[in-house]
């Protein structure tokens, strides 16, 4: 919604002042509005928090309180051990009631902690919450000056005085209420996305589920059995997937990607690109004849190179949805216009070689990003002969082998010659915990899936010997330690503590050179097969997606949460939530709870149809704005737009985050920030210089 807030607040005087401020200090002094504000002097209150010893240990709060009491428009000044505590807040309420305060400064910790608390408190006494300001004398004073008490005390005084100056000119503001769209977009159809989508749909919200592959399930569809109970992965997953396919509340878009996101919390506008499948999924009955007759076979990514697939094929057998896709790069028709076998055999005439990508516009109120993970790319891993030696594979590849519906029907065999490996080496922390060369972080799941794989291997090849090179065994989930110990005891896994230095091929065997730090001995294993637990990394394109969503990622490309402990599923951008391995590596059960957590946050967010937003945002003095449009360029939140009719720039109140970029950029000082006007800022600075 566009609106011109310029006129909403009578701004002529302010506009004049701004211009003068622009002209020169002297001019400013002549028409100093301070005289004005003194004429209608506010009664102010100052409340100083000890924060236990956090502040009082360094700052002499008593004397500060005394000094503040002497400031002439301060009619109440008090200190207390914990202002945020119930009695602390009561002090403030009482003072407002008894002294009829018109402005309040609470000197305490950072506003990010308790600004909300105190604004609520003053509001309950009928004061406009935006007449209450926080003077941060903890993070910005007592904590950083613990050695210099005297100076710290002076600094605290100045900070408070400055904040008083601000409060004097604060205006009463009302929160901006925005109507919101109560449907949700979930990006990613893995276990995280599926869980979030189902929870939300169960909660009665419209859900749009986006999956870039042609079917649901994500990496979990590639797994054989899952730790610690060794349940087969697929059955439960299929029930969930079917549930999603059937659910009236879920609008499923497979083989689709997010093209563009506009808008803000409560009102996101999306453009989804449905990639051309060259099959009319409406018509297709999933009979599979096309697949049977397609003459083109090529190496399957899904099978991690162990199996082949057709040019028209499902992602995996019995996939949900069970509709095939023609893969343009491999399809003969697309290469040389020949073949068309599939078209011929299709009983439903569902093949559409002329199909085009389709763009769909949607509106949602919130977005869940569940983009999942990939394994560290083979190309970049310049060691362990990974990629050159066929019998050196990664964990996911072994999972495919172990899957009964996989390329080897669940049999563990060497890719090179199909022999059953008798000496099996597993190597953990490949590219994880390797700060200088690869990833510094721990991939969290490798210890457990390696133990699981070794167990299954031992069950399949009783006379085989699994060796596991590890650094620390990290089985820290419920039942994990027990699983591990039991497996070691029963299956006689041999754990070797230490990294492998080198792997090379030597007449038919893969020689592994390592060390066992527990004995300090060098060890050499002539292995038949080596399985690398390669690092978990964010899946491709997350960075681009994050950019589109204005969400932030860390240096490895994992999406960053608002607060690691208290807001683990909220992103740095309002209305955008994070679930699953896109945020950091985790196992299935942690992923599932995190996904449900996002659903919970969103249900709370969307439970009302109006959303209240902080009004501390930019506004434009339309008398000054020359419509140069620099602000529109510079605004990182697309909150500024030109009002072509009036030739000025206006503020999109719901989008504006009050970052102040436009204020700095505006060549003729037409932009100001509510309750942080240039004048206020200038006055505050006066206190310090």
């Amino acid at each position: 919604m566009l609106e011109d807030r310029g006129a909403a607040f009578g701004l002529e005087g302010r506009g004049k002042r701004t211009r003068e401020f622009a002209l020169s200090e002297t001019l400013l002094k002549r028409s100093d509005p301070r005289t004005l504000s003194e004429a209608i002097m506010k009664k102010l209150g100052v409340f100083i928090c000890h924060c236990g010893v956090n502040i009082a240990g360094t700052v002499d709060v008593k004397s500060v309180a005394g000094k503040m009491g002497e400031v002439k428009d301060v009619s109440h000044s008090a200190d207390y051990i914990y202002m945020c505590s119930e009695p602390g807040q009561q002090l403030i309420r009482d003072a407002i009631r008894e002294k009829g305060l018109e402005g309040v400064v609470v000197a305490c910790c950072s506003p990010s902690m308790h600004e909300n608390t105190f604004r609520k408190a003053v509001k309950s006494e009928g004061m406009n919450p935006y007449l209450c300001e926080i003077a941060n004398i903890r993070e910005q004073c007592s904590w950083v000056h613990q050695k210099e008490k005297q100076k710290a005390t002076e600094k605290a005084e100045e900070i408070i005085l400055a904040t008083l100056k601000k409060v004097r000119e604060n205006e009463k503001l009302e929160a901006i209420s925005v109507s919101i769209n109560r449907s949700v977009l979930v990006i990613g159809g893995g276990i995280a996305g599926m869980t979030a989508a189902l929870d939300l749909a169960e909660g009665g919200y419209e859900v749009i589920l986006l999956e870039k592959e042609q079917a649901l399930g994500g990496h979990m569809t590639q797994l054989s059995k899952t730790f610690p109970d060794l349940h087969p992965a697929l059955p439960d997953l299929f029930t969930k997937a079917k549930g999603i396919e059937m659910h009236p509340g879920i609008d499923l878009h497979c083989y689709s990607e997010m093209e563009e996101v506009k808008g803000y919390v409560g009102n996101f506008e999306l453009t989804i690109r449905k990639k051309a499948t060259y099959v009319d999924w409406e018509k297709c009955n999933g009979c599979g004849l096309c697949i049977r007759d397609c003459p083109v076979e090529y190496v399957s990514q899904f099978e991690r190179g162990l199996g082949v697939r057709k040019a028209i094929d499902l992602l995996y057998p019995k996939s949900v949805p069970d509709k095939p896709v023609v893969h343009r790069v491999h399809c003969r028709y697309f290469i040389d216009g020949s073949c068309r076998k599939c078209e011929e055999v299709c009983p439903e005439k569902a093949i559409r070689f002329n199909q085009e990508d389709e763009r769909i516009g949607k509106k949602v109120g919130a977005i869940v990003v569940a983009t999942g993970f990939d394994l560290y790319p083979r190309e970049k891993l310049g060691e362990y002969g990974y990629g050159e030696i066929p019998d050196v594979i990664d964990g996911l590849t072994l999972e495919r082998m172990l899957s009964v519906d996989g390329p080897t029907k669940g049999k563990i065999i060497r890719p090179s010659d199909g022999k059953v490996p008798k000496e099996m080496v597993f190597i953990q922390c490949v590219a994880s915990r390797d700060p200088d060369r690869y990833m510094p972080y721990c991939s969290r799941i490798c210890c457990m899936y390696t133990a699981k794989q070794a167990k299954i291997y031992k069950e399949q090849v009783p006379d085989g010997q699994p060796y596991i090179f590890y650094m620390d065994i990290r089985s820290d989930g419920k039942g994990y330690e027990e699983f591990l110990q039991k497996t070691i005891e029963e299956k006689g896994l041999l754990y070797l503590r230490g990294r492998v230095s080198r792997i090379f091929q030597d007449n038919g065997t893969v020689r592994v050179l390592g060390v066992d730090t527990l004995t300090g001995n060098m060890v050499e294993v002539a292995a038949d097969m080596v399985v690398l637990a390669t690092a978990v990394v964010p899946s491709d394109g997350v960075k681009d997606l994050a950019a589109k969503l204005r969400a932030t990622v860390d240096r490895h490309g994992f999406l960053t949460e608002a607060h690691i402990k208290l807001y683990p599923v909220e992103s740095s951008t309002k209305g955008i939530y994070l679930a699953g391995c896109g945020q950091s590596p985790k196992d299935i059960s942690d992923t599932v709870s995190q996904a449900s957590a996002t659903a919970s946050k969103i249900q709370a967010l969307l439970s009302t149809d109006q959303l209240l937003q902080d009004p501390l945002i930019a506004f434009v003095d339309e008398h000054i704005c020359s419509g140069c449009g620099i602000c529109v360029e510079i605004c990182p939140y697309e909150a500024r737009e030109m009002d072509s009719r009036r030739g000025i720039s206006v503020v999109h109140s719901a989008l504006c985050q009050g970052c102040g970029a436009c204020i700095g950029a505006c060549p003729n000082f037409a932009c100001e920030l509510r309750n942080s006007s240039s004048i206020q800022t200038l006055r505050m600075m006066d206190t310090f210089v």
Partner: protein
Amino acid sequence: MEALTNMEKANKTFLEEVSKRSGEKLSLCYQCLKCTAGCPTAPNMEFRPNSIIRMIQMGKKQEVLGSSAIWFCVYCQTCGTRCPNEIHIGVLMDALREMAMEEGVHAKEKNIHLFHEAFIQSVRRGGRAHEVTMLMEYILRSRDLMKGSLIPGVKLFLKGKFPLLPSFVKGKGEIKRIFEKCKK
């Protein structure tokens, strides 16, 4: 550098054999080192108790049976009392000593196991351990009369702690029989 696997193949049995004999779940050991940390004789062992278990897991039969460590254990059971996986290394060591004797592996500290044998001999003769005969036996076997261990004997003797003639038990025939029986 030793090739692990080949040895491993041959001696996978070693871990199993030792486990069976000692009745200890050796594969459970996750090398927390609590045993070594509390062991009174560890400083004198060339392999620490935890290493012994590790070596068994790695199938290093010769090194283990040949090591003095297994003869140094005095079975104070401090380790077993505190082991999180309740592996009684004392028990383990006893099993290893037996195996060493059977295999005729020569311990670096051969004297120690000679002492054990000397003790048995003495009991076999008289039904009761008798220090003098025992010491003589031991010294004869260990062939080093100069060894300090003779001195304690002499001192005790001077102190009147050793009766010159061993006291015999009536049932000693019976004891002999028992020993014989066990030989079979």
